[in-house]
């Protein structure tokens, strides 16, 4: 009991920290992930280009390691340090931050439009302190139709989606409609975590699909290699909507550039740091999307891409 008391005492003593006049940037990541890492890099590069580097700002970075209570406590910690702004990456920290503070400006990235995340009030207005960059699902149409352009004879498209991720389910609903409109048959199968991916993809491939469309959800992000390997064995090309997945073995993609997504949010945050005012700022849609392809994979499947596509490694 006595030791317990001492350890608490230690905790309380250690939480007093010296004050500095630099603006404090709280940055919270939900999990350790290559793709989210790009957005984070973009965010801080944007700050740096606007003259905010480690000499002029103080950064409190916390990563929740994909554990929700940890994420809440990380946010509590950041808020307790009275940050000038909070950057959230991706959706779940954005939702939590909006709940936790009504005053500190929040700059989100890799998050959906506020109404898609149910963050708007009855009047359809998003929280007054929410800024940053969001994405809708419109780009998915273009991404999916890449299949039609590149493989004119394709009939059956297979996909896996994660029931536990709102953006994955919303994206699935979207591409289902696009497939129907484009005369493609969509074969979909649910996965709940990355350990199931191999089995689900194998059963999907047994349906003789002509192409695989990888929805940009966390399950796909964490198990892309096994998806590509399974599809390669059956000679099925993988298409997607996220550039990072092309470097990891998809043939081609059209979608947001994750680095630029973070960069755009970072630019907004920098303008707030300069003007000290959020007037004129609002959540905005991600602007940089591009067509990319993987040279090695293109050769493997004997596909050609014109100059509107950029090759990525």
């Amino acid at each position: 009991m006595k030791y317990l008391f001492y350890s608490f005492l230690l905790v309380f003593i250690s939480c007093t920290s010296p004050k500095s006049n630099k603006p404090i940037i709280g940055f919270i990541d939900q999990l350790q992930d290559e793709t989210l890492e790009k957005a984070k890099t973009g965010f801080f590069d944007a700050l740096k280009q606007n003259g905010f580097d480690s000499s002029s700002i103080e950064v409190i970075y916390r990563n929740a390691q994909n554990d929700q209570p940890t994420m809440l406590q990380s946010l509590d910690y950041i808020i307790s340090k009275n940050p000038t702004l909070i950057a959230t990456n991706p959706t779940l920290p954005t939702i939590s931050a909006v709940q936790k503070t009504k005053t500190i400006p929040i700059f989100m990235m890799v998050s959906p439009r506020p109404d898609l995340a149910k963050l708007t009030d009855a009047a359809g207005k998003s929280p007054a302190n929410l800024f940053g960059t969001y994405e809708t699902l419109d780009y998915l149409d273009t991404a999916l139709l890449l299949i039609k352009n590149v493989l004119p004879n394709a009939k059956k498209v297979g996909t896996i989606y994660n029931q536990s991720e709102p953006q994955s389910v919303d994206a699935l609903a979207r591409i289902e409609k696009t497939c129907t409109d484009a005369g493609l048959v969509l074969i979909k199968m649910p996965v709940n975590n990355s350990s199931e991916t191999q089995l689900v993809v194998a059963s999907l491939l047994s349906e003789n699909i002509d192409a695989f469309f990888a929805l940009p959800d966390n399950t796909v992000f964490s198990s892309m290699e096994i998806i590509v390997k399974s599809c390669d064995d059956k000679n099925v090309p993988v298409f997607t909507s996220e550039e990072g997945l092309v470097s990891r073995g998809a043939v081609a993609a059209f979608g947001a550039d994750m680095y630029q997504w973070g960069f755009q949010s970072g630019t907004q945050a920098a303008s707030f740091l300069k003007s000290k005012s959020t007037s004129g700022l609002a959540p905005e849609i991600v602007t940089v999307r591009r067509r990319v392809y993987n040279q090695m994979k293109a050769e493997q499947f004997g596909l050609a891409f014109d100059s509107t596509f950029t090759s990525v490694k």
Partner: protein
Amino acid sequence: MSFYLSAIILGLGFASLAMGIFISMRIFNIPDITTDGSFTLGGVVAAVLISDGYTPLFALPIAFFAGAAAGAITGFIHTRLKVNALLAGILVMTALYSINLAIMGRSNLPLINYPSIFSSSSFSDSLAIQQFIILTLIILVIFSALIWLLKTDFGLAMRATGNNEKMIRALGVNTDAMKIFGIALANGLTAISGYLITQIQGFADINMGIGVVIIGLGSVMIGQILFSRKGNERLLIQLTGVIIGSIVFRMILAFALSIGIDAIYLKLVVAVFVLIVVSIPNLKSKA
């Protein structure tokens, strides 16, 4: 300071879950995996009812009974269908994933602009203090009710079932019914935790229950090590230990977050800190 207060608030939110685990683990010796599902179930029920306009207080008993129903199913599968308790829990937890998705209709439901149990009365202007007071009251009510229940003849029979099932059956107690009731009660308490955490964090998420059984087991064990002395098995002290254990668990994580460890090593450091806290009393008694 408010940061540590919010850690205590989370700890209190998880205390109901820890008491549930205390029942399944310490009384029946069953590590009940159903917990991961019934925790989310409690949160999901709360989120759906509150966003449909029901009062948060109305959602409380419904969350409890939903969790209890899930636990009763685990108990039934275990006792009547003779399935191993771990597997029974895993099966129900897995099935609850679909049930939770179906109830919520989507995988994440924010409760922005809706009332919560913490807004239904006002003790203080500060939300954190308000949360702290209401959580303390709720946990105190659960704590007292549980002490009372476990001290009745029925409660004694339930505890005895965990200690020596054969003897208790010989005394004419229906031990299967005791187990089903006990696991149902445990999961009802777990669902209350889910209900509370959903309102603390302001959203329900389909993945919010992943790994909470570990949080509960950890809290029970920490409480046991910090509070039980040799030969002292008093229920009051054991249960107090469970609640304190739940708070200590959060405080350790809070401390780890506040000293700014490299994110990669966060979980390792938390594990080491827990080890240090629980091993200090033992090191002392050996010396």
